[in-house]
């Protein structure tokens, strides 16, 4: 097992010449190439983050007189049952995680060989990835409305008792959204897992087959271990998505309702700021959301470390891969493959 350099690029690992060459180079070389990225990100991401943190300690009235109130926004927020309902929703949505990871994993494996026109199926599944969540949300809102086509169809074929108020029932709406998130991300997952599977040496599958392994045994003992880091990355990607990119879906599908039953953090912040004018609350809530993301990100460092301790396995790149959110998956898999 060889440790893999943190900078990635497993392939050029034995050659250190590039590194020494780079080290000798003056840092300022071509700084004008770097500056645009740094300036744009600092101006649009990092300065605003500091600003919103600063404003979360004020009774913030944009364009008017703001007064410093310390942590009052936070104490009010944490005392608000509605805030906890939204946090609860966010955690409920995480229950969809096994589904969002396992479904594309199994299907990518299914499509790996011996399927007619596998490429066309991958393309069809991938289509939602290019479509605006807002527009797709509109379509599903119509499809799933009380007297909409889905219920009408169910009634037509005599399954009227399954014609449910999909988006207007507080108990149903979150599971329905979990399924819609699966619909939206499934094809991307299938694509990513498919290309990870393509990098696994065919000989491993053949050897397993000679040993008499069936579909599931092969899947579990050969396929999954070989692409473990890609699975971790995809899982992270899904967690981030459910915390950060649900706004358009919720805005269009349910408006957060019924009540607050489907409201996510980002939608609640938008509503508080843009609609209700609770500017300070929205600022405090933004800070809480950022902290939640940080906690989750650090968990992805802590959990692999704990797993490492418990199982005694050394996986040098796992933690790095998850911290940067998307490390070169294939290189990692190759390293893992060599390691095992």
């Amino acid at each position, binding site marked *: 097992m060889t440790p893999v350099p943190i900078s990635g690029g497993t392939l050029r690992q034995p050659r250190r010449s590039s590194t020494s060459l780079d080290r000798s180079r003056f840092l300022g*070389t071509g700084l004008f190439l770097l500056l645009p990225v740094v300036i744009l990100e600092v101006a*649009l991401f990092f300065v605003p983050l500091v600003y919103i943190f600063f404003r979360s300690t004020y009774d913030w009235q944009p364009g008017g007189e703001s007064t410093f109130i310390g942590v009052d926004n936070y104490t009010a927020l944490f005392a608000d049952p509605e805030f906890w309902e939204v946090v609860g929703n966010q955690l409920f949505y995480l229950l969809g995680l096994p589904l969002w990871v396992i479904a594309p994993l199994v*299907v990518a494996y299914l499509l790996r060989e011996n399927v007619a026109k596998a490429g066309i199926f991958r393309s069809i*599944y991938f289509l939602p990835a290019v479509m605006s969540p807002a527009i797709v949300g509109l379509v599903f809102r119509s499809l799933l409305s009380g007297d909409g086509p889905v219920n009408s169809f169910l009634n037509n074929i005599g399954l009227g008792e399954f014609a449910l108020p999909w988006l207007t029932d507080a108990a149903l709406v979150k599971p329905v959204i979990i399924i819609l998130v699966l619909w939206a991300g499934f094809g991307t997952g299938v694509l990513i897992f498919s290309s990870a599977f393509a990098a696994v040496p065919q000989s491993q599958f053949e050897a397993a087959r000679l040993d008499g392994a069936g579909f599931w045994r092969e899947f579990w003992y050969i396929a999954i271990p070989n692409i473990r880091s890609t699975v971790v990355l995809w899982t992270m990607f899904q967690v981030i998505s459910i915390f950060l990119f649900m706004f358009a879906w919720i805005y269009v599908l349910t408006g957060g309702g019924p009540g607050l039953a489907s409201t996510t953090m980002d939608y609640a912040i*938008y509503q508080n700021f843009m609609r209700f004018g609770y500017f300070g609350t929205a600022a405090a809530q933004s800070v809480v959301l950022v902290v939640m*993301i940080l906690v989750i990100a650090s968990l992805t460092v802590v959990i692999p470390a704990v797993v490492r301790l418990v199982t005694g396995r050394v996986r040098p790149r796992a933690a790095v891969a998850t911290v940067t959110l998307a490390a070169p998956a294939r290189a990692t898999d190759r390293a893992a493959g060599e390691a095992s």
Partner: protein
Amino acid sequence: MTTIATERKVKTGIAVLIAIPFIIPFLFLVSTTVRSPADYAANPGGLPRSFTLDNLVNAWNDANLGMALLSTLFVSVIACLVCASTALAGAYWFRIHDGRFIGMVRAVLVAGYAIPMIAWLIPVFVILANGNLTGNLFVAGIVNGVSSLPFALYLVHTFYKQVLTAEILEAVTLDGAGTLKAFWHVAIPMSLPALASVVALVFVWSFGDLLISATLLQSDPAVYTVTLAATSLSTREEVNLQGQAAAALVALLPTIVVFLFAQKSLAKGFGGGSEK
């Protein structure tokens, strides 16, 4: 051999079944767009028995979709230009420099992806509103481009690590080419596949964006993007479901065209540029 043939049939059958939920929404969208409201009301879950383009024409006029499409196109092109140019340049800089501290700077820039958009967009909105810059499509384009920048930077950098090998970088330096020259004549021509992925992704994302336009452009219907126009159409009482479906169809078509022509680049982009 027959077992393999059977397995093939079963697997392909499963793949077909899974494809159904991905096709139905389109069929519904197209059929609802071309049906008369009365026909739809009679049997929402059935097949259309009428054909009309009135819904499309009405939606086009009601939501000013032509103008909205142009606005969205403008925003998306600006976003692509901003994101692709800065990501290529930044990724090249990170390719020719190395070291722990620089690696950390790059990690921070890439981690920008995980900053909740709503958390930075609200202060940006407040600052822009102070400068009277809301309702400005050019600004919305820049914001859209920057929102994709962390992912694009990561993607191009990953690609550079694969194609700009140490040998190539060494040869370029030995040739005495300056950094800008090397970037322009060597790195950019070699980065075309990654560039295609970035452009395709950023176009698709900014074309479909709702949060940025709902925040920065909400106040002025004259500059509504097509997602904003289509979604606000749905809140208007006098517009029926057929009109909404027509607007949705118009809003989806451009990205589906991009999908048809740039599917490979898109797929590579979503993989973070890690697959060749």
